[in-house]
């Protein structure tokens, strides 16, 4: 028995139309809603959760919008950005981008000015060093602004108990640091950790050591200053210091440094305020035994630190600039900003003076417990600079990102420590390589 189904042409066409309509529904829905992409280099699960909670509020205020949070390593930013720019799908807002990348991208015309955002928040509320750094003075606008004002290298954490037992002088100068490091070095505990791997931390710490010795990488007149007596002095100081640092320091970056100190394997180490969070969670018995001082400098040095200035930028190719700006302002609203900062209290420090001095920011158990340490770090970040502009007299160095990324500076230090090259020869070789990069 066969069943015949009578189908008219009209019914067939109608059915086909309905099926195609159903298939097209997701695209129609997508076209009506706006999916915004937010990139960040802050990857801890709690930080992502805080971002999602903040943007949930944004989505409620902007019906039809959804915000997707994507997090990457700092090193992944440029490759991912290159890929999305080529595909025509750049993110709508990027947070925690190194300032050197910001000016590198700005030089290629890839960023949208953010002056509106800075004005809406209040220009005077931002720390001056961060604004000065990220100003395109040639074209007269800000291509980005620092969302936090922290330093990973400016703070030197130390064990009060070990320094006290050793009867050491502390860390007020290079000589004092060398002496204290020698005295606190013992079996199972290193005097210090000085990371000099080919990493962002290795580069920044060396840069800061050279600055604090009074040197520059690029002189204010634009010539290469890497082969100066200050660089040689920095190399010699580090070489002495490394006698009391773990053998693997040549491969260390952020993680190894903070872990070594928090686990109680070193009497001192440079790092950001994350030490306090990790110490309370992982090694609470030492939580009251730690404190912080500014990383020392020799007599006659320059009191300046390497600041992180992780920045917020809007790609010029972002689909809706207005919405991107509103997203940025949402993150800067005091309650949201403090909420984000409190996820990693004392690690990400505020770049708004009103927040740094606010009761809301202070109302956190970690910040309250370690208020003197937090104040020491805030004072250090206010003196922070970047390779972008080594002093007020410097013009913006748009090759800063390439110099840092190619790890020429820390490689010169490795030439001395691992390669056995003389500090003078290593500084000269490094200077030649930097000069070559500046010409490219």
């Amino acid at each position, binding site marked *: 028995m066969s069943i015949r189904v009578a189908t008219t042409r009209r019914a067939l066409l109608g059915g086909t139309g309905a099926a195609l309509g159903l298939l097209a529904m997701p695209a129609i829905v997508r076209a009506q809603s706006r999916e915004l992409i937010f990139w960040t280099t802050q990857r801890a699960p709690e930080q992502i959760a805080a971002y999602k909670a903040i943007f949930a509020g944004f989505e409620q205020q902007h019906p039809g919008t959804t915000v997707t949070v994507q997090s990457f390593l700092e090193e992944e930013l*440029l*490759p991912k*950005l*290159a890929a999305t*720019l*080529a595909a025509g799908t750049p993110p709508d807002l990027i947070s925690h981008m190194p300032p050197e990348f910001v000016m*590198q*991208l700005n030089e*290629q*015309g*890839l960023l949208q000015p953010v002056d509106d955002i800075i004005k809406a928040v209040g220009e005077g509320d931002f720390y001056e060093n961060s604004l000065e750094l990220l100003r395109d003075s040639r074209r007269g606008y800000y291509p980005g602004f620092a969302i936090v004002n922290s330093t990973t290298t400016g703070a030197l954490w130390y064990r009060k108990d070990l320094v006290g037992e050793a009867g050491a002088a502390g860390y007020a100068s290079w000589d004092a640091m060398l002496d204290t490091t020698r005295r606190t070095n013992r079996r199972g505990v290193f005097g210090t950790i000085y990371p000099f*791997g*080919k*990493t962002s931390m290795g580069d920044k710490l060396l840069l800061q050591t050279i600055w604090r010795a009074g040197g520059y990488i690029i002189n204010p007149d634009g010539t290469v200053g890497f082969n100066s007596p200050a660089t040689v002095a920095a190399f010699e100081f580090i070489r002495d210091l490394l006698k009391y640092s*773990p*053998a*693997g*320091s*040549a*491969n*260390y970056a952020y993680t*190894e440094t903070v872990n*070594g100190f928090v*686990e109680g*394997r070193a009497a001192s180490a440079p790092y950001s305020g994350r030490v306090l969070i990790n110490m309370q969670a992982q090694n609470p018995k030492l939580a009251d035994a730690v404190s912080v001082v500014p990383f020392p400098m020799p007599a006659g040095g320059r009191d300046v630190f390497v600041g992180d200035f992780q920045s917020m930028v809007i790609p010029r190719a972002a689909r809706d600039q207005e919405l991107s700006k509103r997203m940025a302002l949402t993150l800067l609203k005091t309650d949201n900003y403090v909420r984000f900062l409190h996820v990693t209290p004392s690690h990400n420090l505020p770049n708004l003076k009103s927040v740094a001095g606010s009761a809301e920011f202070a109302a956190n158990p970690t910040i309250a417990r370690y208020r003197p340490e937090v104040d020491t770090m805030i004072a250090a970040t206010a003196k922070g600079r970047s390779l972008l502009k080594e002093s007020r007299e410097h013009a913006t160095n748009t090759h800063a*990102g*390439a110099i*840092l*990324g*190619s*790890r020429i500076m820390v*490689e010169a230090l*490795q*030439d001395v420590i*691992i*390669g056995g090259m003389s500090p003078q020869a290593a500084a000269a070789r490094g200077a030649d390589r930097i000069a070559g*990069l500046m010409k*490219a």
Partner: protein
Amino acid sequence: MPALAAPMAGRRRGGWSLAARNAAFGYVLMLPSILFFLVLIAYPLLQTFWISLHRMSTLTRQGEFVGLANYRALLESADFWGAFGQSLVWTVCCLALQMGLGIGFALVLNARLTFRPAARALVLFPYLLSTVVAVLVWQWLFNDMYGYLNYLIEEYGLSDGPVNWLGQSPNAMISTILVAGWKHFPFVTIAVLARLQGIPPALYDAARIDGASAWSRFWDITLPQLRPVLAMVIILRTIWDFKEFDLIFMMTGGGPRSSTETLPLLIYKEVFPKLSMGSGAAIAMVMLVIMVAFFWVYAGQYDREERARSR
């Protein structure tokens, strides 16, 4: 002859002979493959070569035509020759280690073992592990403060202090090669084991009757039987090792100094931190030429051997 005239007319339909139409149909069938080749191989290759003739930003993909200037700069660069040397050391050592371990394990797993299925599954473990996880595990083992290797070394008094596995030259290169050998040898094991199982046992029986020693049986029966599969494995592993990036980048970042900086890491350094797409593309083209040359020599040698064997 009307009966014959009709088919003849069919064969010349539209002025095309049957042979021509068959050929055209053949080309139509090949068209998807040709299109895939053009889109997925020829276009990217030509595009890379074209980019290598420009001074071009990675982000804007705009720049000026500079001809062969990127190649000239490359050949004059000490960084390039250093990375080239390191790439050769890396490839040859990795290959030797992987082949040695791979063949050794395949021979063991081909023998009658009590837990052979479990052992075969276990030997695949490093190959199945993602590179990121493998690197993290090994970095932990190599760590000079908490690493288990250093703990054992100090515990058994083999050294006064911890060994600097990754922060000293040539330790870093040796350690990274060991990790690569451990990670990739199962590929060789799988391929060789599959071939070993296909060798007729009668060959070994006959050799035993003739009084051949274990070494003679391996040299005169096993190895010749493995030759085709070893050739393919060597070619594939050489290509993969020569362009290895993620494992080295995550283990050492090319350091200490530039002691583990191979050509793929140099490409990365040019294309991303320096945003110099043109010079990165030039290195990639040079790498391609080296690989093609290697493949050419090897394929020619293999072809000659095969012809000699079939004579």
